[in-house]
Each structure stands twice: as C-alpha cells, then as structure tokens.
C-alpha cells in the first residue's frame, strides 16, 4: 500500500517551540525529526513500501515521487523551504492527482498529513473549505473522499489541548470523516519536544508500519516469512460479525490446485511473501551499517545460504503451474502463487479470498477438497483430460435448465409452444383417448 507524506511547510510551521532555553526548535524541525524516524524505520523494516513526499502551503509540490529510496526522501526533508499559508484542500487535490496517476483508483493508499494544526485563514483555509462543502458544483468538488481506498493519518505537531482551543480539532475530525473514516489523528502528549514527537511517530509506526511476520507451514516444512504489505483486518457483516477478522500468523498450506481450476479468482488483497531470517538482531540495526555487514553476514544473508521452504515452494509452483491453497484463519483461505515481475524475475505472492468456507463457488467448500489419491477414481482422469471443477451447484441456475418464460411475445416462441401442445395432445390421446383441451395456467 503506497504512502503519501504530505508535509505542511507554511509559515506557522516555523513557530519556535518554547523550551527551557537549551536549544530552540521550530515545529518544522520536530516534524522533520519524526518523519526521519518514520523513513528510517521503513528503510529497515518496511522497505518495499513506495513512499512519496509532498510539501504544501497555498500551493503544493511533489518533492519526491513514489520511491523505495528512503535516502532520497530524507535528503528532501533536509532541504525544505518555508512558504506562505496552509491550504489543505489544494494539497489534497494534489494527492488525489499524484496517486491516481501512479496507481489508478483501485489501489488503497495511505496519506500521512503532517501539520501544526493551524489550518489557514479565510478563503482556502480548511474551515472555509468545510463550510462551503455543500455549495459546490461538480467541477469544484472537495477532493475527499478520494476515489481510491484511503487511510488518512494526521500527525499534529501540537497537543490536543491546543487544537481544541480553536476549531482545528473539529475540522480535522471532519476531514478524517470525509475521507471515509479510516485512519487516525495523532497529537503530541506533554511539551513539544523531540521525545514527544518520537512517541507520536512511534505510535504511527506500530499501528501502520510494523512488519507482518508469520510462519508458513506445509506439513513438516516451514519458513518464517514477512507478508507485505501487512494484511488488513476484514469486517464481514457489521451487524452479525462486527469483530474484524485478522490473518493468522500461522499460514498453513492445505493443498495444491491447478491454475486452470482456480481460474483467476477474485481476491481482496495481494501480498508479497518474503522469507526472513529467524534471528532479527542484525536486521534491526537499520541504515548506515553497510560496512559492518561485510564483516559479519547479516541474518538475512545467512538465510540466503541455507535451504528455505519458500524457495522450494516458489520454484515448484512456477514449474508445475499450480497454486497452493493456504488457510489464513478459521474458515478463511487464500492462495500462494508465483507472480512474474518480468521475464527473469518472479515472486512468491499470496492473495486473500473473501473470508468464508466457500470463497470460490466453482471449487465448492474448501474444507470439502481433498487429495486426489483419496478419490476412488482420479478426478482428472488417467490422462489428465478432465477436471472436477467447476463443482456443480445442487440446484441448477435458471440458465442451465429448460425454463420457459413467456413474458415477452418473442419469448413465447410459437414453435416451441406448439411443440409443447402437440406433445400434450399426443399424450392425452394415447392415455385418455379423448379430444384435447388446452388451458393456460
């Protein structure tokens, strides 16, 4: 899930933070510190995330397009300039454009808005935007909700009390609500300082950017893996099952099936499955330790040298043209498969099906599938000429039956009708030996 960092570079961000004299910071410095921390974390633990950096005041500018080069992002942070006033609406329009250009409207996206909570004045201020929300034409619609699924995280370089003194907090909450409600507003606790900004970004990291580690099992074989991006909890039915379902950290392969049989099934999300080293100590060191790594091989490098089940699985799926069905939790399944990036490179990927015992109607209940060897006759035939799929429904759909609908005169099809009558007549003649009468129902 790509991330857009939207950094407020208005003048208000240069307000100094009042501290007991030691060293003077601007709010901007705190924000940059927090973002550096986020980028460092991502570089070492979430490095596959594509992140872009935008700065905004009354105008917006894309400083770094979507990249995995976290040095470039940090570099850009260190060169921020100060501009005029805050105009959130314009910036959000910018986000909408940038994301749609790169990812289209189907890819979920995370937006991290970093601001001090002074949201502009007069026309172009967030307050003004929200007040005029309903008086707009189609061409000047407010950018939220974005056309793509969004998680909006608002990082306030201010504490909650400060924001509640004005209507800033209310406006931000409304903004979050408009974006679809998925996300959170973070504020700083206690005095504004490096430590409290670290705490705030730490919470964001824990919530959104902590890597999802799991163990992939296949009988007695297993491998520690990272699933990227982290699978999101799924709510099935708000009324009956309001608790979101989460993917288990034990992923268990239940079997293998031909690609033709699973037939490009609908999925709710797709993830890379990457083998990881069990010992993560070395990995945690983060950036700037490349010299040390050469002396002492990192855990991931060590992992590269020992045989890994993921490699075996990926290779096998690719060669055999099959996918592995994997259980993600109670009555929740997904599939593992090899996805080609290019001609030379391919990855092991996992797609999640809709939760439930029967996510793909043409396979029937997943729990009813079993090994070929246990079937009385090979369901694929001895020469692999047939397939047990799609599984036939117990009740045939109307289009698989000889239904007759006479609503339209064309549907009446007189020929068919007459044939029908004739057969009735014949039956009657033979059985009852009496002249036929035909009644409409």
């Amino acid at each position: 899930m790509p991330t857009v960092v939207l950094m407020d570079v208005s003048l208000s961000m240069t307000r100094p933070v009042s501290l007991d004299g030691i060293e003077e910071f601007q709010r901007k410095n705190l924000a940059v510190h927090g973002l550096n921390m986020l980028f460092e974390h991502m570089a070492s633990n979430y490095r596959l995330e594509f992140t872009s950096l935008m700065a905004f005041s009354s105008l917006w500018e894309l400083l770094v397009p979507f990249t995995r080069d976290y040095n470039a992002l940090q570099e850009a942070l260190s060169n921020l300039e100060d501009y005029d006033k805050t105009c959130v609406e314009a910036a959000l329009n910018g986000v909408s454009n940038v994301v749609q250009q790169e990812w289209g409207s189907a890819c979920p996206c995370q937006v991290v808005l970093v601001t001090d909570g002074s949201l502009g004045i007069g026309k172009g201020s967030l307050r003004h935007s929200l007040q005029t929300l309903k008086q707009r034409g189609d061409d000047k619609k407010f950018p939220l909700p974005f056309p793509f699924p969004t998680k909006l995280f608002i990082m306030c370089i201010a504490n909650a009390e400060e924001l509640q003194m004005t209507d800033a907090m209310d406006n931000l909450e409304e903004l979050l609500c408009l974006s679809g409600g998925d996300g959170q507003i973070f504020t700083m606790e206690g005095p504004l300082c490096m430590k409290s900004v670290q705490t705030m970004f730490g919470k964001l990291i824990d919530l959104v950017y902590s890597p999802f580690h799991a163990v992939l099992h296949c009988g007695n074989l297993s491998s520690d893996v990272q699933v990227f991006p982290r699978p999101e909890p799924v709510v099935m039915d708000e009324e009956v099952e309001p608790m979101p379902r989460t993917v288990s950290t034990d992923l268990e392969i239940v079997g293998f099936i031909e690609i033709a049989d699973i037939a490009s099934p609908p999925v709710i999300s797709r993830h890379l499955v990457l083998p990881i080293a069990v010992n993560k100590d070395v990995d945690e060191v983060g950036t700037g330790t490349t010299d040390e790594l050469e002396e002492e091989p990192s855990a991931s490098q060590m992992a590269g040298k020992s045989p890994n089940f993921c490699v075996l699985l990926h290779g096998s799926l690719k060669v055999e043209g099959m996918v592995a069905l994997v259980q993600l939790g109670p009555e929740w399944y997904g599939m593992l498969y090899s996805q080609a990036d290019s001609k030379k490179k391919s990855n092991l990927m996992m797609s999640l099906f809709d939760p439930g015992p029967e996510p793909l109607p043409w396979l029937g209940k997943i729990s009813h599938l079993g090994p070929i060897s246990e079937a009385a006759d090979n369901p694929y035939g001895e020469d692999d000429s047939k397939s047990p799929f799609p599984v036939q429904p117990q009740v045939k759909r109307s289009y698989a039956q000889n239904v007759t609908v006479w609503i339209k005169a064309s549907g009446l099809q007189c020929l068919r009708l007459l044939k029908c009558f004739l057969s009735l007549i014949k039956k009657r003649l033979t059985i009852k030996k009496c002249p036929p009468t035909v009644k409409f129902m």
Partner: protein
Amino acid sequence: MLFPDREALPSQGFHQICKMKMFSVAHKTVFVVDHCPYMAESSRQQVECDVLTKSRAQGVIPLAPVSKSLWTCAVECSMEYCRILYDVYPKDKLVNYIVSDSEFHILNSWRREDQSTHELMSALAAVGPPNPREDPECCSILHGLVAAVESLCKITELQHEKRIALMDTADRVANRGRIICLTNAKSDTHVRMLEDCIQETIIEQNKLAAGSDRLMAIQQCELVLVHIYPQGEDTLVSDRPKKEISPLLTSEVHSVRAGRHLATKLNILVQQHFDLASTTITNIPMKEEQHANTSANYDVELLHHRDAHLEFFKSGDLHMAGTSTRENGLKETVTLKWCTPRTNSIELHYCTGAYRISPTDVNSRPSSCLTNFLLNGKLDSSQFLPAERAKAQLERHTRYWPMIISQTTIFNMQAVVPLANLIVKETLTDEDVLTCQKTVYNLVDMERKNDPLPISTVGSRGKGPKRDEQYRIMWNELETLVKTHAGATDRHQRVLDCIIACRSKPPEEEDRKKRGRKREEREDRTEKNGSKETDDKSWQDSERLKGLMDKDEQESEVIKDSPDSPEPLNKKPRLTSEEIQPPERTKGPVSLLTMWSNRITAVNSRKHQEFFGRASSVNSKFELYQHLKDENGMDVHENGKATR
C-alpha cells in the same frame, strides 16, 4: 438454432462474491398473490399465435390471438422475480410463496430445499387457475397477508444457525422481511385497510413471538403492494412511494397494467430489492446453424450484483463503457463490448470481483446460446474429501523432504521411486509392501552389481566417496525415510524390516569392506574437527553393544545395522544371529535363484489371500493352537461356538 462461434469465445464463466447485510429485509421475501375469482379476468394483452403462415397448409383456419389472465400475468412475473433472485443469490435469500382466495395456501417454506423455481412451479400447477365461479364474498387477499406476517415470524435455517453460533450475542440476528402483494385492489381506501391490517397483525404476532423459540418478532417489514389491472382500463388505485406507517412497517404502492408492464415493474423491483444492476454484453459472435461459416453478432443482457459496476464508477470510465437509459428511465444498463482475450488458462490474472449473473431474457436465443456455451461440458461432479485429510497427507509427504538436490541420493534414483511413492501412504496393501520389498531387492541387486549411484561429488574432494560408501549413504537415507513412516502400520514396519534385513552384509564381505572403510575413517578423522564427537558416539555405541551381546541376538542385529553405528568390535554375536535369521531375510547380495523364487512367491502370493499363519508369522514360524494356551479366555468359548 444458434450456437457460439467457439474460437471467438473465452472459456471463463461469471462468478460472484457479494456483500449485503446478512439479515436485511432481503433475507425473507413473502409473495402474496391474489387467487380470487376476478384474477381470472383477461389481461387483454394479446398474444399472437398465428406466425406459422408460411408452413401452414391451405385451408386451415388461422389461429386467433390469445390473452393471459391477470392470474397468469401475476404468476409469470413473480416467478421471473424468483428466477433472477435464485440465480444471483443461490443461498439465504429466501422466498415464501402464498396464494390467497377464500383461504390462504402456503406453497413452500423457508427451508433451503424448498427454495427453487421448480418447487414453486409444481406447487402453482397444483393450485391451478382461479375459479371464476367461487363466491367473491368469501375471497380476500387479507387471508394471505395475515399468513405472510405469521410466516415472517418463523425462524429460517440461517437465523437459527447464527443464533446458535453467536450464543450470548444472539440478539444480533435480526428479523426483517418484505411482503410483495400482487392483487387487484378496489381503491386507495382498500389499500389503507390492507396496510392497517398488516400493522395490527405484526403487533399481534410479535407478542406471540416473544414467548417462543421458533418464532422471532418482526423488527422491520416492507410492504410492496402491486395493484394489477387489465389493459385499457383506468386504475382505481394511485401509485405511492415508500412511506412509514409505523417504525415496524413501511409501505409502497405500484399501480401497474397487466402484461409486459407488470413484468417490467417486477424486473425493476427485483433489482432494487437485491442491489442488482444490468450489463449488456454487445457484439457476441455467434453462428447460425444453417450458415456455420459466417458468424453474426448478438447482444445479451445480464443482471448481477451492482458492485460489479463499482470499479467503473470509481474510475469514471462509465461514460466510456456506455450506459443507456430505457423505457421508463428507471432501468439502466452498462454496455460492454465483447472481446475475445487471447488468454491461456494457465495464467493467473488479477481479479477484484466475480459476480453471479442471470440473463434478463433467459430463453432468448442469444442468451441461451451464451449460457449453454459457458456451461458446456461442466456437468461432472465428484465427491471430495475433507481438507483435514489433505493436511494429513502433506504432513506425511514432508516427514522426510531434503531441500537440496545434491544432498539426497534416493530422490535422485529412479529405482527408489516405487517405494518412495508408496511409503507416504496412510495405509499399505500387501501388494504395496511387495512392491516396496521388490524395490529394496532391486537396490540390493544394484549394489551387488556395483552400479554407480547418483551421489553428488560437489563439495567433496577428489572423486567423492567410494562405491560401498555411496551405498552406505544411500541405505542410511532410505532407512531414514522409511523410519519416519514405520510407526504408521504393521505393513510400513515390514518395509523397514525388509530394508534393515537386506542391507546387512554377509560377514566376509562386511569384513572386507570394514578394512577398507577403516582406512577411510582414519583419514576422515584427521580431517574432521568433529572427530571427538564421533569417538564419543562410537564409544557409547560399543558400550551399548557389549550390553546387548548377552541379550537377544536378533536385537543386536538391528542395532548393528542402524545407520550410523560403527562396526562392532566383536563379530561373534553376528555369526550366531545369522543362523537364526530367517532364510528369506539373509539378503545381502542374493543369488539369482533366491531372486527368482522371491519373485515367484510374490507373484503367487498375489493370487491368493495370505494364510493367516504365514501373514502373522514370526521368523516364518507360527505357533499353532495358540488359543489352547488361553484356557479360561474368550477364545475357548468362541472355539466351542464355532464348532457347533
């Protein structure tokens, strides 16, 4: 007859996953259809039957047009509603069909097996057309409406299952429903009377439901009253949009002319009620049976869950895809042009949604051509076993699974395949055991002939291990594989026994080998860092052996042959053990005669059931009259019975 141009069609069907609140009003739909005498009146929409002018012989009187009754129109359009509903939601969107005249007739129940158009059609056929001679005073739609409310209180299988599953939070299972009433009302006042009556019945029934396990109080009821009147007459009832009668009941009135207007109305209603939308696939190439060389293009309209259009709306591509508004402006369809993707079925494509479909015009020629093609050849269904068995199989197959090709010998050998394939089975037949044994004998033969083994020389210096060492590695690996399964059944154990027995060498050969190997070992030890460990192990093993020497010779034989144990210091026990070994187990390199006789025995044994005595023999010996030992046991008793 149309049939599809095969080359031009992809082989993919349409499928659906959909999201709707589980117990929304759509969970329960009650149809109440008027069966009173006035419903026997003609709809006055004419149906031409006389279309056979060309083929008809002269002198035959032309067929007069016919006309459906109001009842027929009501039945047809309600069945269409159900057909579409069941196609798109094969489960848990339920219909209860009630017919009302001088009393009510409930044609089916909420049970899943009662949910099909076929069931309903049979029941309707039994009901027959309204009797025009019945006393109109006794007949009323009210009987049916009261029954409908009672029916909505009845718990469905899904409600029951969920209530049980949720236990403490069973109150999350809601009870909502919809009543679709097809009738010929007398006036707006009459309609209001019907509404009031339903409202009162709901309150009454909810009181009853409070004291019952099998009934649930109605939380929300939607009444859709469709007033049907013959064409060419003025309606006596006015249309009215949905309004709230009480917090429990909403009501809407549709006043519709019978015939195709009524059919269109119910088609619109089923779309509204079940979140459906329409897509028309245009330009589908199909061939005419008479002109198989040319293919013409046809359009097919499909109904499906409206989420299928979500992506279009989001990306704003809907204008590109094209929408068209038809007839009354209520019904829209998205048109998609058929394209024939040159895809092969072994590619996975990213798919965000799959939706069940129902053709709007199910028996039009293009529709049935398309659906027949999509369903073609997919009528084979087979019984499958639970996934837990699959997991168990995976577990068995992965008990011993070398990940690196160069680190395995047996999985690089064609000769081992039969055994490796069989040993992972949950149970083995006697035949399987024989096959395994034959595999082992074959390996023994290979060893005798000194055949090369596919042992990797990567990583080892020089030419790699000597041939006898190669075989030792191979036997060890085979034993490791089989040992992981030996505990499963006696037959698995017999395979292991066979390996253990076969790999033992006659002493003189063993001796010769030992001398050679000792030299190697010495070299090894000077090279290896772990020599101390090896020393310790061999010391332990030799200590163990000393202890065993006094014991059962057979056991010491087993120990001797366990994979990594060193040669015993003393040869004596083995000499004695060899005498005791059953002849068929003295395997090592066997003579041609032995192999031949083994083979013949094996073949013969397949022709008859193995004698009980031989099958459960120990060292080819079986104690007779065992039951006599057990003098006061069940056996004697049973024996006595058997002789009688």
